[in-house]
């Protein structure tokens, strides 16, 4: 499958749509529009020579050989299109921005969230949780007096959620996912049955189900539920009115047997070795079959130009031949419609670097991410930790209720990969046992089991509200190898969120008590992300769920895009992805941004195909 064209051809072509970014939102927009007869160019800043398995294998081998197996460790260091990496994050000193990593940390809070700049974007390393938002999440202002309302509601997005669940190949059962106002049309089924919960999950459910926990005036009854996941499981023959579902396997130029079911490689992040987990290359490779998508990789959109009519006139690019050399060529690309789908940080960065902060001045502002509080303990029995996909179940019962007028909502994941996120287990456990425990041989083997197979880690994913002061900016002092302005992050955690952090810690103590688990949680004041609140200290981690930087609203005065993700300022410009979301609730953002991408694709198609000059399907 030859997917690349040369830059000269692209420069001399007037495309219907130019998409910047090949992640999930760009891929969905590109595929949807190409399948409706439109000619689409996708430019990707990162590498990804071809949509082949060999390409993918390179990532896997790099991951195997990496000492630090962080969530971007599978991907090449690329000074031409750098990406944030969590090991780069340092404890900040007040007033001293840290420019160690690609992302300039301006503080006061250090943020270790990342994204991935390769073909397929951050879906290469995403974990694959595919959860709808709750209906009440769309009405934060009117229901809880917090944050913002969306200009559209759950019901508007519901059909697109179904499209997204098809595209991403979601495994879940409707009965498990029907909670706190989430509704499905009668007879709806997910493409595949829910993935089986882990042994660890069943131990936790056995002891926790039915526990009642009070959050303000809301009584929450705990129920451990399987999580909806975008990874291949058992196809549901009842899907689509009995038509069933054919899972999408590994992307490859020749036939392979991979990508079928999740094998339990416990490595969703940073890379599923068999492509059982959805990644945007799957969408791209299917879209390419139309013959109407061109892809240019190693091609950085460097500047967006606006014509006198206020429309985008063209976008400049820099194309580099090798990740090890800054040599590059430049040119301009033209299309009727422009879609920036480069993720919330890069979308904002590109607009700001182009001198386009928006008439509302809100480009880059209202940055959100989930705040993660990690709590960990040792279970009284062997739970078989470190097997399965990274998470198979969670607790949804702290996501909804009147308490949200007082503090943020939380969602709990039970981590099959134990303490690896907070402590670096099992490596750190091994080093301690060998270096300090002075055990070896069979004793070591027993101690390793005792130490690791009983691990329980609960992550509390806590919502943030949009705050204009949390923002991405650019600063002429900070540039990358090709001279592009790097993103500068200013970030702090609102009270509303911090109160939920305290509540989460209280909840985790209750849950550990109920489980008879030995609480091992420790927060080191020297760690990045350490914050004190109400006399207790916590380490808050990022969730990689960047959002809000081109926030959606019902008026050009207080938002950047309308409900179709169209820029208020430039009629032929769309800013797609979680950057448009006015709230993120307690759902991982991918399913919602995928749904939004389908909705936007419909809108762009209707705009373009009603023009008399265009012949659909030509």
């Amino acid at each position, binding site marked *: 499958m030859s997917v690349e064209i040369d830059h000269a051809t692209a420069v001399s072509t007037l495309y219907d749509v130019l998409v910047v970014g090949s992640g999930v939102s760009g891929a969905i927009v590109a595929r949807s529009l190409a399948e409706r007869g439109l000619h689409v160019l996708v430019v990707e800043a990162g590498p990804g020579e071809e949509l082949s398995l060999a390409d993918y294998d390179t990532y896997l081998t790099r991951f195997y050989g990496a000492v630090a197996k962080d969530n971007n460790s599978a991907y090449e260091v690329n000074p031409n299109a750098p990406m944030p990496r969590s090991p780069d994050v340092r404890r900040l000193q007040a007033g001293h921005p840290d420019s160690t990593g690609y992302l300039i940390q301006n503080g006061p809070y250090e943020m270790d969230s990342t994204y991935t700049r390769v073909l397929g974007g951050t879906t290469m390393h995403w974990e694959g949780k595919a959860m709808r938002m709750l209906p009440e999440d769309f009405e934060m202002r009117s229901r809880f007096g917090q944050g913002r309302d969306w200009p559209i509601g759950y019901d508007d997005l519901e059909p697109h959620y179904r499209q997204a669940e098809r595209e991403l190949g979601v495994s879940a059962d409707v009965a498990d996912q029907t909670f706190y106002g989430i509704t499905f049309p009668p007879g709806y089924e997910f493409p595949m049955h829910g993935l089986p919960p882990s042994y660890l999950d069943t131990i936790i459910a056995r002891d926790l189900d039915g526990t009642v926990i009070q959050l303000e005036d809301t009584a929450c009854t705990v129920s451990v539920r399987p999580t909806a996941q975008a990874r291949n499981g058992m*196809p549901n023959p009842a899907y689509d009115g009995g038509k069933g579902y054919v899972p999408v396997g590994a992307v490859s130029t020749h036939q392979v047997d991979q990508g079928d079911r999740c094998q339990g490689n416990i490595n969703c992040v940073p890379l599923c070795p068999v492509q059982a987990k959805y990644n945007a290359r799957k969408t791209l490779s299917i879209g390419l079959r139309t013959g109407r998508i061109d892809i240019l990789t190693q091609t950085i959109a460097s500047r967006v130009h606006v014509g006198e009519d206020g429309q985008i006139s063209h976008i400049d690019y820099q194309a580099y031949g090798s990740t090890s050399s800054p040599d590059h060529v430049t040119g301009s690309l033209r299309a009727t419609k422009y879609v920036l789908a480069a993720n919330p940080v890069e979308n904002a960065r590109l607009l700001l670097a182009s001198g386009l902060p928006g008439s509302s001045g809100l480009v880059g502002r209202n940055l959100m991410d989930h705040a993660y509080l990690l709590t960990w303990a040792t279970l009284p029995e062997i739970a078989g930790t470190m097997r399965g996909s990274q998470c198979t179940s969670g607790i949804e019962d702290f996501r909804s209720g009147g308490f949200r007028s007082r503090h943020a909502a939380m969602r709990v994941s039970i981590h099959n990969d134990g303490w690896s996120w907070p402590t670096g287990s099992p490596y750190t456990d091994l080093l301690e046992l060998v270096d300090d425990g002075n055990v070896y041989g069979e004793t070591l083997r027993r101690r390793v089991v005792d130490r690791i197979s009983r691990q329980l880690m609960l992550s509390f994913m806590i919502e943030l509200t949009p705050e204009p002061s949390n923002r991405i900016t650019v600063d002429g002092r900070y540039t990358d190898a090709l001279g592009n302005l790097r993103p500068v992050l200013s970030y702090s955690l609102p009270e509303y969120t911090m109160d939920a952090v305290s509540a989460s810690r209280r909840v985790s103590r209750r849950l550990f008590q109920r489980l008879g688990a030995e609480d091992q949680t420790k927060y080191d004041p020297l760690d990045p992300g350490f914050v004190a609140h109400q006399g207790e200290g916590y380490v808050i981690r990022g969730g990689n769920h960047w959002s809000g930087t081109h926030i959606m609203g019902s008026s050009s005065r207080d938002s950047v895009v309308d409900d179709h993700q169209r820029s208020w300022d430039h009629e032929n410009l769309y800013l797609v992805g979680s950057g448009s979301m006015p709230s993120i609730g307690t759902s991982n953002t991918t399913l919602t941004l995928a749904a939004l991408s389908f909705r936007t694709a419909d809108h762009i198609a209707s705009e373009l195909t009603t023009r008399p000059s265009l012949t659909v399907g030509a």
Partner: protein
Amino acid sequence: MTLRRIATVTDLHQYLQVALQLEHATIPPYLTALYSMHPSTNADANRVIRVVAVEEMLHLTLAANLLNAVGGEPDLTVDGFVPVYPCHLPDGEDDFEVGTRAFSPEAIDSFLKIERPAEGENQRFVARKRSHRALLPRVDAHEDDLHFFSIGEFYAEIGDGLHRLYEQHGEALFCGDTARQVGPEYYYSGGGAIVKVTDADSAAAAMRVISEQGEGLGGGIFDEEGELAHYYRFQQLLLGRYYQPGDDAGNPTGPTLDVDWDAVYPIVADADFHHYTEPGELRDAVLAYSASYGDFLARLTEAFRGHPELLLPAVADMFRIKELASQIMRNPMPGRDGMNAAPIFRGLASVGLSSVKVA
């Protein structure tokens, strides 16, 4: 066992049970070659062989579906179900043997012969002296030297037989319990789809997958679904290049394919119990491996007899025994300098200690 041309439903059952045996017989040679490669090397060769092995599993399952559909009783545990390697495949010719051997050009050559396409219309049977190590049974007691030319021709006879019996019996031929049919929810992969067999049409569809996936359609290198036939997939390894659509047989023009024939453990060919007489860990492991393989076949039999959900743990069995196979192959063979051990795929029946033949 002697087969005659298919005249009765019982004949058909016999043929389909042989089909199970035949489809399975290719798996240990393919797996042995696959497991013999060093980890993180030979990615292309690894994939090519693995896809074929997985598709042989698909064929095995389809054969079970066919046998179940016509009221038969699949059994992967009968004595002698797994051939003693080396054996002659598929037609009893003496010109080549198939064994459990390390990945090598010679091994690929024997795989090509397993999967070789039919040469013409009237070559279903060839008259040639039959080897006693031939896996396929004789065709008829009175035609002792008559054999199927290829696996494809064997299936053509099943196809014809099915057709003849269907003319006689109508849909009553498909009297099997439909709950025994394995559906796509239990088996899917990059290539080929499982077909539940409940009538003449679905039987024909299942037959098409089995016979075409191996050998290509009507002499072409790609089948109806656009998949490259097994024969040509293996050939790519010898030619060092991938086929792409539009290519002619023997002349692939796709991307190059790197094969490192040296990144392979030097394992003993056609390992058998007499190679492991010395008590110790290695022998224990080889016996455990054979027993696990037998458990796997027993689990498949159960799955094909009304418990398709057992195919999931059977796949996990395969992953587990692969690990043990790799461990065995990295251990030196005692007394054979420069030679490594290799696993035996025999099964439970032969592994009782009393039945271990010491040469």
